[in-house]
Protein backbone atom coordinates (compact mmCIF):
# COMPACT_ATOMS: atom_id res chain seq x y z
CA UNK A 1 0.00 0.00 0.00
CA UNK A 2 1.69 3.21 -1.01
CA UNK A 3 1.29 6.61 0.57
CA UNK A 4 -0.67 9.21 -1.31
CA UNK A 5 1.96 11.89 -1.74
CA UNK A 6 -0.22 14.34 -3.56
CA UNK A 7 -1.73 15.65 -0.32
CA UNK A 8 -0.42 16.54 3.11
CA UNK A 9 -0.87 13.55 5.43
CA UNK A 10 -3.31 13.69 8.32
CA UNK A 11 -2.15 13.91 11.94
CA UNK A 12 -1.57 10.25 12.57
CA UNK A 13 -0.17 9.64 9.13
CA UNK A 14 2.33 12.46 9.63
CA UNK A 15 3.38 11.09 12.99
CA UNK A 16 3.96 7.63 11.56
CA UNK A 17 5.86 9.04 8.61
CA UNK A 18 8.08 11.01 10.98
CA UNK A 19 8.56 8.02 13.26
CA UNK A 20 9.55 5.80 10.39
CA UNK A 21 11.97 8.40 9.05
CA UNK A 22 13.66 8.81 12.43
CA UNK A 23 13.92 5.07 12.99
CA UNK A 24 15.31 4.58 9.52
CA UNK A 25 17.95 7.24 10.16
CA UNK A 26 18.97 5.31 13.25
CA UNK A 27 19.16 2.10 11.26
CA UNK A 28 16.40 0.44 13.26
CA UNK A 29 13.90 -0.13 10.46
CA UNK A 30 14.13 -0.37 6.71
CA UNK A 31 11.19 0.45 4.43
CA UNK A 32 11.49 -2.73 2.38
CA UNK A 33 11.11 -4.91 5.47
CA UNK A 34 8.08 -2.91 6.54
CA UNK A 35 6.54 -3.36 3.09
CA UNK A 36 7.00 -7.09 3.35
CA UNK A 37 5.38 -7.28 6.77
CA UNK A 38 2.39 -5.29 5.53
CA UNK A 39 2.09 -7.48 2.46
CA UNK A 40 2.19 -10.59 4.64
CA UNK A 41 -0.66 -9.47 6.86
CA UNK A 42 -2.75 -7.98 4.09
CA UNK A 43 -2.41 -10.80 1.61
CA UNK A 44 -0.89 -13.92 3.04
CA UNK A 45 -1.77 -14.46 6.68
CA UNK A 46 -5.49 -14.71 7.17
CA UNK A 47 -8.51 -16.82 8.14
CA UNK A 48 -8.07 -18.98 5.07
CA UNK A 49 -5.32 -20.65 7.11
CA UNK A 50 -7.61 -21.43 10.01
CA UNK A 51 -10.29 -22.59 7.61
CA UNK A 52 -7.91 -25.26 6.33
CA UNK A 53 -7.19 -26.37 9.87
CA UNK A 54 -10.88 -26.69 10.62
CA UNK A 55 -11.59 -28.47 7.33
CA UNK A 56 -8.90 -30.98 8.10
CA UNK A 57 -10.19 -31.49 11.64
CA UNK A 58 -13.64 -32.20 10.21
CA UNK A 59 -12.25 -34.67 7.68
CA UNK A 60 -9.70 -36.52 9.74
CA UNK A 61 -10.50 -37.78 13.24
CA UNK A 62 -6.87 -38.47 14.11
CA UNK A 63 -5.86 -34.99 13.05
CA UNK A 64 -8.69 -33.51 15.10
CA UNK A 65 -7.57 -35.38 18.20
CA UNK A 66 -3.98 -34.24 17.77
CA UNK A 67 -5.13 -30.67 17.12
CA UNK A 68 -7.08 -30.57 20.35
CA UNK A 69 -4.11 -31.97 22.26
CA UNK A 70 -1.40 -29.70 20.83
CA UNK A 71 -2.61 -27.12 18.34
CA UNK A 72 0.71 -25.25 18.09
CA UNK A 73 2.59 -28.25 16.78
CA UNK A 74 -0.17 -29.48 14.52
CA UNK A 75 -0.81 -26.03 13.03
CA UNK A 76 2.93 -25.51 12.57
CA UNK A 77 3.08 -28.78 10.64
CA UNK A 78 0.63 -27.24 8.19
CA UNK A 79 3.05 -24.36 7.77
CA UNK A 80 1.31 -21.77 9.93
CA UNK A 81 3.28 -20.22 12.76
CA UNK A 82 5.16 -17.06 13.65
CA UNK A 83 4.17 -14.10 15.84
CA UNK A 84 1.33 -14.82 18.26
CA UNK A 85 1.39 -18.45 17.26
CA UNK A 86 3.69 -19.91 19.86
CA UNK A 87 0.94 -21.17 22.13
CA UNK A 88 -2.13 -22.07 20.13
CA UNK A 89 -5.09 -23.85 21.67
CA UNK A 90 -7.96 -25.30 19.66
CA UNK A 91 -11.31 -25.39 21.42
CA UNK A 92 -14.12 -27.37 19.95
CA UNK A 93 -17.81 -26.50 19.75
CA UNK A 94 -20.05 -29.38 20.73
CA UNK A 95 -23.79 -29.87 21.22
CA UNK A 96 -23.23 -28.83 24.84
CA UNK A 97 -20.59 -26.10 24.57
CA UNK A 98 -20.24 -23.01 22.40
CA UNK A 99 -16.86 -21.27 22.60
CA UNK A 100 -16.23 -17.55 22.30
CA UNK A 101 -12.80 -15.90 22.25
CA UNK A 102 -11.89 -12.43 23.47
CA UNK A 103 -8.93 -10.47 24.81
CA UNK A 104 -10.32 -8.10 27.40
CA UNK A 105 -6.93 -6.51 28.07
CA UNK A 106 -5.96 -5.49 24.56
CA UNK A 107 -6.58 -7.47 21.35
CA UNK A 108 -4.63 -10.72 21.46
CA UNK A 109 -5.65 -12.97 18.61
CA UNK A 110 -4.26 -16.10 16.92
CA UNK A 111 -2.57 -14.32 14.02
CA UNK A 112 -1.10 -17.31 12.16
CA UNK A 113 -4.50 -18.91 11.64
CA UNK A 114 -6.80 -15.89 11.51
CA UNK A 115 -4.61 -12.96 10.46
CA UNK A 116 -5.18 -9.64 12.24
CA UNK A 117 -8.38 -9.11 14.20
CA UNK A 118 -11.34 -7.13 12.84
CA UNK A 119 -12.15 -3.72 14.29
CA UNK A 120 -15.10 -5.00 16.32
CA UNK A 121 -12.95 -7.59 18.10
CA UNK A 122 -10.72 -4.78 19.39
CA UNK A 123 -13.60 -2.52 20.39
CA UNK A 124 -14.47 -1.62 23.95
CA UNK A 125 -17.99 -2.89 23.29
CA UNK A 126 -16.87 -6.37 22.32
CA UNK A 127 -14.15 -6.71 24.92
CA UNK A 128 -16.42 -5.75 27.78
CA UNK A 129 -19.57 -7.50 26.66
CA UNK A 130 -18.00 -10.79 25.58
CA UNK A 131 -17.32 -11.61 29.23
CA UNK A 132 -20.23 -9.75 30.75
CA UNK A 133 -23.09 -10.66 28.43
CA UNK A 134 -22.00 -13.10 25.75
CA UNK A 135 -25.55 -14.16 24.95
CA UNK A 136 -26.69 -10.59 24.32
CA UNK A 137 -23.56 -9.93 22.30
CA UNK A 138 -24.03 -13.01 20.13
CA UNK A 139 -27.62 -11.97 19.43
CA UNK A 140 -26.22 -8.79 17.87
CA UNK A 141 -24.17 -11.04 15.63
CA UNK A 142 -27.36 -12.85 14.72
CA UNK A 143 -26.53 -15.93 16.73
CA UNK A 144 -28.88 -17.31 19.34
CA UNK A 145 -27.44 -19.99 21.59
CA UNK A 146 -29.98 -22.25 23.35
CA UNK A 147 -30.07 -21.91 27.13
CA UNK A 148 -29.04 -25.49 27.73
CA UNK A 149 -25.81 -24.92 25.82
CA UNK A 150 -22.91 -23.59 27.89
CA UNK A 151 -21.24 -20.49 26.49
CA UNK A 152 -17.58 -20.79 27.35
CA UNK A 153 -15.72 -17.51 27.00
CA UNK A 154 -11.92 -17.67 26.67
CA UNK A 155 -10.17 -14.50 27.79
CA UNK A 156 -6.71 -14.54 26.16
CA UNK A 157 -5.00 -12.95 29.13
CA UNK A 158 -1.65 -14.75 28.93
CA UNK A 159 0.28 -16.30 26.03
CA UNK A 160 -2.34 -18.78 24.88
CA UNK A 161 -4.20 -17.94 21.66
CA UNK A 162 -7.47 -19.63 20.96
CA UNK A 163 -8.98 -21.01 17.78
CA UNK A 164 -12.58 -22.18 17.85
CA UNK A 165 -13.33 -25.33 15.88
CA UNK A 166 -16.96 -24.81 14.84
CA UNK A 167 -19.37 -27.65 14.41
CA UNK A 168 -19.53 -29.24 11.02
CA UNK A 169 -22.91 -28.36 9.49
CA UNK A 170 -25.34 -30.79 7.93
CA UNK A 171 -25.20 -31.34 4.20
CA UNK A 172 -21.41 -31.47 4.00
CA UNK A 173 -20.76 -35.19 4.11
CA UNK A 174 -19.73 -35.35 0.47
CA UNK A 175 -17.48 -32.32 0.54
CA UNK A 176 -13.72 -32.68 0.34
CA UNK A 177 -11.29 -30.66 2.44
CA UNK A 178 -10.93 -27.84 -0.08
CA UNK A 179 -14.69 -27.44 -0.33
CA UNK A 180 -15.06 -27.54 3.44
CA UNK A 181 -12.37 -24.89 3.89
CA UNK A 182 -14.41 -22.62 1.60
CA UNK A 183 -17.38 -22.55 3.95
CA UNK A 184 -15.54 -22.00 7.24
CA UNK A 185 -15.83 -18.30 8.15
CA UNK A 186 -13.50 -16.19 10.27
CA UNK A 187 -16.28 -15.35 12.70
CA UNK A 188 -17.05 -19.02 13.26
CA UNK A 189 -13.44 -19.48 14.41
CA UNK A 190 -13.80 -16.62 16.89
CA UNK A 191 -17.16 -17.87 18.10
CA UNK A 192 -19.43 -15.04 16.96
CA UNK A 193 -20.91 -17.21 14.22
CA UNK A 194 -21.50 -20.81 13.31
CA UNK A 195 -20.89 -22.42 9.95
CA UNK A 196 -24.21 -22.68 8.15
CA UNK A 197 -25.13 -25.62 5.94
CA UNK A 198 -24.24 -24.83 2.34
CA UNK A 199 -27.07 -23.76 0.09
CA UNK A 200 -28.49 -26.39 -2.23
CA UNK A 201 -26.39 -25.20 -5.15
CA UNK A 202 -23.26 -25.90 -3.10
CA UNK A 203 -22.27 -22.25 -2.76
CA UNK A 204 -21.04 -21.19 0.70
CA UNK A 205 -23.81 -19.83 2.91
Amino acid at each position, binding site marked *: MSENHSSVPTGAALRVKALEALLEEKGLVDPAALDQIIDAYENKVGPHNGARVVARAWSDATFRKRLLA*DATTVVAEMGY*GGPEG*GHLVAVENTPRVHNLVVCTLCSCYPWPVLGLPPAWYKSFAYRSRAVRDP*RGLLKEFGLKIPEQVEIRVWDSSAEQRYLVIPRRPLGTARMNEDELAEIVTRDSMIGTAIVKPPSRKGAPA
Partner: protein
Amino acid sequence: MGGMDGFGAVVHEDNEPTFHFDWEARIFALLLACRPYGNTDELRHAIERIPAQRYLTSSYYERWLDAMQILLVEKGAILRDELASRDIDPPTPSQPSNRLQKRPAEASRARARFRRGDRVIARNINPAGHTRLPRYIRGKRGVILRDWGTYALPDSNAHGGGERPQHVYSVAFKAREVWGANAPSRDTIHIDLWEDYLEATRPGAKAAVNRKPATGRGKKQ
Protein backbone atom coordinates in the same frame (compact mmCIF):
# COMPACT_ATOMS: atom_id res chain seq x y z
CA MET B 1 2.56 -31.55 27.32
CA GLY B 2 0.79 -32.92 24.28
CA GLY B 3 1.92 -36.51 24.50
CA MET B 4 3.12 -36.29 20.92
CA ASP B 5 5.68 -38.84 19.90
CA GLY B 6 7.16 -37.20 16.85
CA PHE B 7 5.71 -35.08 14.15
CA GLY B 8 2.83 -37.24 13.07
CA ALA B 9 1.96 -38.92 9.82
CA VAL B 10 2.51 -37.19 6.54
CA VAL B 11 -0.91 -36.55 5.10
CA HIS B 12 -1.24 -37.47 1.46
CA GLU B 13 -4.17 -36.01 -0.40
CA ASP B 14 -5.15 -36.68 -3.94
CA ASN B 15 -5.69 -33.09 -4.90
CA GLU B 16 -2.67 -31.54 -3.20
CA PRO B 17 -0.84 -29.06 -5.39
CA THR B 18 2.43 -30.57 -6.62
CA PHE B 19 4.67 -27.98 -4.96
CA HIS B 20 3.03 -28.49 -1.59
CA PHE B 21 3.59 -32.23 -1.77
CA ASP B 22 7.20 -31.96 -2.86
CA TRP B 23 8.38 -29.69 -0.07
CA GLU B 24 6.29 -31.43 2.50
CA ALA B 25 7.81 -34.78 1.71
CA ARG B 26 11.33 -33.38 1.72
CA ILE B 27 10.85 -31.42 4.91
CA PHE B 28 9.32 -34.31 6.78
CA ALA B 29 12.16 -36.54 5.72
CA LEU B 30 14.60 -33.99 7.11
CA LEU B 31 12.58 -33.59 10.28
CA LEU B 32 12.57 -37.31 10.89
CA ALA B 33 16.32 -37.36 10.41
CA CYS B 34 16.66 -34.56 12.97
CA ARG B 35 14.51 -36.20 15.61
CA PRO B 36 17.47 -37.23 17.74
CA TYR B 37 18.29 -33.55 18.16
CA GLY B 38 14.96 -32.18 19.23
CA ASN B 39 11.48 -33.20 20.29
CA THR B 40 8.22 -31.67 19.17
CA ASP B 41 8.25 -29.10 21.92
CA GLU B 42 11.74 -27.91 21.07
CA LEU B 43 10.98 -27.68 17.39
CA ARG B 44 7.88 -25.68 18.10
CA HIS B 45 9.87 -23.41 20.35
CA ALA B 46 12.46 -22.98 17.61
CA ILE B 47 9.78 -22.01 15.09
CA GLU B 48 8.41 -19.37 17.38
CA ARG B 49 11.91 -17.96 17.78
CA ILE B 50 12.45 -17.36 14.10
CA PRO B 51 12.71 -13.57 13.94
CA ALA B 52 9.33 -12.23 12.87
CA GLN B 53 10.56 -10.38 9.82
CA ARG B 54 12.46 -13.39 8.56
CA TYR B 55 9.52 -15.62 9.26
CA LEU B 56 7.11 -13.45 7.33
CA THR B 57 9.35 -13.16 4.31
CA SER B 58 10.09 -16.86 4.14
CA SER B 59 8.28 -19.57 2.34
CA TYR B 60 6.95 -22.45 4.40
CA TYR B 61 9.91 -24.57 3.33
CA GLU B 62 12.35 -21.93 4.55
CA ARG B 63 10.65 -21.63 7.94
CA TRP B 64 11.06 -25.30 8.68
CA LEU B 65 14.67 -25.14 7.55
CA ASP B 66 15.22 -22.16 9.84
CA ALA B 67 13.69 -23.97 12.80
CA MET B 68 15.90 -26.98 12.22
CA GLN B 69 18.97 -24.81 11.88
CA ILE B 70 18.20 -23.03 15.15
CA LEU B 71 17.79 -26.34 16.93
CA LEU B 72 20.81 -28.03 15.42
CA VAL B 73 23.10 -25.07 16.17
CA GLU B 74 21.82 -24.80 19.73
CA LYS B 75 22.32 -28.48 20.31
CA GLY B 76 25.85 -28.28 18.99
CA ALA B 77 25.11 -30.68 16.14
CA ILE B 78 26.22 -28.10 13.63
CA LEU B 79 28.44 -25.09 14.09
CA ARG B 80 27.26 -21.76 12.72
CA ASP B 81 30.58 -21.58 10.87
CA GLU B 82 29.80 -24.79 9.04
CA LEU B 83 26.55 -23.35 7.80
CA ALA B 84 28.27 -20.12 6.83
CA SER B 85 30.94 -22.01 4.92
CA ARG B 86 28.19 -23.44 2.75
CA ASP B 87 26.73 -20.00 2.16
CA ILE B 88 23.82 -20.76 4.43
CA ASP B 89 22.68 -17.80 6.48
CA PRO B 90 21.20 -19.30 9.62
CA PRO B 91 18.67 -17.22 11.53
CA THR B 92 19.62 -15.72 14.84
CA PRO B 93 16.81 -16.64 17.19
CA SER B 94 14.79 -13.62 18.19
CA GLN B 95 14.32 -12.55 21.79
CA PRO B 96 13.55 -15.69 23.75
CA SER B 97 9.85 -16.17 24.08
CA ASN B 98 8.27 -16.12 27.50
CA ARG B 99 8.09 -19.89 27.37
CA LEU B 100 11.16 -20.96 29.28
CA GLN B 101 13.41 -23.80 28.27
CA LYS B 102 12.93 -26.64 30.69
CA ARG B 103 16.21 -27.00 32.50
CA PRO B 104 16.27 -29.05 35.68
CA ALA B 105 17.30 -26.15 37.93
CA GLU B 106 14.61 -23.85 36.61
CA ALA B 107 11.96 -26.54 36.66
CA SER B 108 12.54 -27.22 40.33
CA ARG B 109 12.60 -23.52 41.16
CA ALA B 110 9.30 -23.06 39.37
CA ARG B 111 7.34 -25.93 40.81
CA ALA B 112 3.60 -25.80 40.30
CA ARG B 113 1.60 -24.80 43.35
CA PHE B 114 -1.67 -25.88 41.82
CA ARG B 115 -3.03 -28.66 39.72
CA ARG B 116 -6.22 -29.55 37.89
CA GLY B 117 -9.24 -29.48 40.15
CA ASP B 118 -7.80 -27.12 42.76
CA ARG B 119 -10.17 -24.41 43.88
CA VAL B 120 -8.58 -21.00 43.77
CA ILE B 121 -9.45 -17.37 44.17
CA ALA B 122 -8.09 -14.57 42.01
CA ARG B 123 -6.25 -12.07 44.19
CA ASN B 124 -7.80 -8.70 44.74
CA ILE B 125 -4.75 -6.69 43.80
CA ASN B 126 -4.69 -3.35 42.07
CA PRO B 127 -1.11 -2.89 41.04
CA ALA B 128 0.07 0.43 39.66
CA GLY B 129 2.28 -1.24 37.09
CA HIS B 130 1.73 -3.79 34.40
CA THR B 131 -0.44 -6.76 35.19
CA ARG B 132 -2.46 -9.28 33.24
CA LEU B 133 -4.97 -10.03 35.94
CA PRO B 134 -8.23 -8.73 34.43
CA ARG B 135 -10.12 -6.47 36.83
CA TYR B 136 -13.44 -8.25 36.57
CA ILE B 137 -12.03 -11.50 37.95
CA ARG B 138 -10.35 -10.16 41.06
CA GLY B 139 -11.68 -11.76 44.23
CA LYS B 140 -13.61 -14.39 42.29
CA ARG B 141 -13.44 -18.13 42.84
CA GLY B 142 -12.57 -20.61 40.15
CA VAL B 143 -11.15 -24.04 39.43
CA ILE B 144 -7.79 -24.93 37.92
CA LEU B 145 -8.27 -26.72 34.60
CA ARG B 146 -4.82 -26.89 33.08
CA ASP B 147 -1.20 -26.05 33.73
CA TRP B 148 0.33 -24.38 30.66
CA GLY B 149 3.88 -24.50 31.99
CA THR B 150 6.25 -21.78 33.16
CA TYR B 151 6.38 -18.25 31.83
CA ALA B 152 7.98 -15.00 32.86
CA LEU B 153 5.70 -12.86 35.00
CA PRO B 154 4.74 -9.78 32.95
CA ASP B 155 4.19 -7.63 36.05
CA SER B 156 7.87 -8.04 36.78
CA ASN B 157 9.33 -8.57 33.34
CA ALA B 158 7.82 -5.45 31.79
CA HIS B 159 9.49 -3.28 34.40
CA GLY B 160 12.96 -4.77 34.39
CA GLY B 161 12.24 -6.71 37.57
CA GLY B 162 13.40 -9.97 36.07
CA GLU B 163 11.44 -12.87 34.75
CA ARG B 164 10.23 -14.47 38.00
CA PRO B 165 9.21 -17.61 36.15
CA GLN B 166 6.10 -19.37 37.34
CA HIS B 167 3.28 -21.53 36.15
CA VAL B 168 0.36 -20.16 34.18
CA TYR B 169 -2.97 -21.92 34.54
CA SER B 170 -6.23 -22.10 32.66
CA VAL B 171 -8.80 -21.29 35.33
CA ALA B 172 -12.56 -21.71 34.92
CA PHE B 173 -15.06 -19.38 36.57
CA LYS B 174 -18.83 -19.69 36.57
CA ALA B 175 -20.54 -16.68 35.06
CA ARG B 176 -22.78 -16.53 38.13
CA GLU B 177 -19.76 -16.35 40.42
CA VAL B 178 -18.46 -13.37 38.46
CA TRP B 179 -21.65 -11.48 37.60
CA GLY B 180 -24.24 -12.68 40.09
CA ALA B 181 -27.40 -14.76 40.05
CA ASN B 182 -28.82 -13.14 36.92
CA ALA B 183 -26.11 -14.66 34.74
CA PRO B 184 -27.01 -17.84 32.85
CA SER B 185 -26.37 -20.84 35.06
CA ARG B 186 -24.33 -22.86 32.62
CA ASP B 187 -22.03 -20.19 31.22
CA THR B 188 -18.37 -19.99 32.16
CA ILE B 189 -15.32 -17.82 31.62
CA HIS B 190 -11.89 -19.39 31.19
CA ILE B 191 -8.92 -17.15 31.89
CA ASP B 192 -5.18 -17.79 31.80
CA LEU B 193 -3.61 -16.64 35.06
CA TRP B 194 -0.10 -16.54 36.47
CA GLU B 195 0.38 -18.36 39.74
CA ASP B 196 1.10 -15.12 41.61
CA TYR B 197 -2.42 -13.98 40.77
CA LEU B 198 -4.00 -16.92 42.60
CA GLU B 199 -4.55 -18.13 46.12
CA ALA B 200 -5.97 -21.42 47.25
CA THR B 201 -9.41 -20.73 48.69
CA ARG B 202 -8.28 -22.46 51.84
CA PRO B 203 -4.66 -23.38 52.52
CA GLY B 204 -4.25 -26.97 51.38
CA ALA B 205 -7.80 -27.12 50.08
CA LYS B 206 -8.18 -29.29 47.02
CA ALA B 207 -11.29 -30.40 45.17
CA ALA B 208 -10.35 -33.28 42.93
CA VAL B 209 -12.23 -33.49 39.67
CA ASN B 210 -12.31 -37.20 38.99
CA ARG B 211 -11.27 -38.67 42.26
CA LYS B 212 -13.60 -40.50 44.63
CA PRO B 213 -14.31 -38.34 47.69
CA ALA B 214 -12.62 -39.30 50.96
CA THR B 215 -14.97 -41.24 53.21
CA GLY B 216 -17.17 -39.15 55.41
CA ARG B 217 -16.04 -35.86 53.95
CA GLY B 218 -18.00 -33.64 51.59
CA LYS B 219 -16.37 -31.83 48.72
CA LYS B 220 -18.18 -28.54 49.14
CA GLN B 221 -16.32 -25.61 50.63
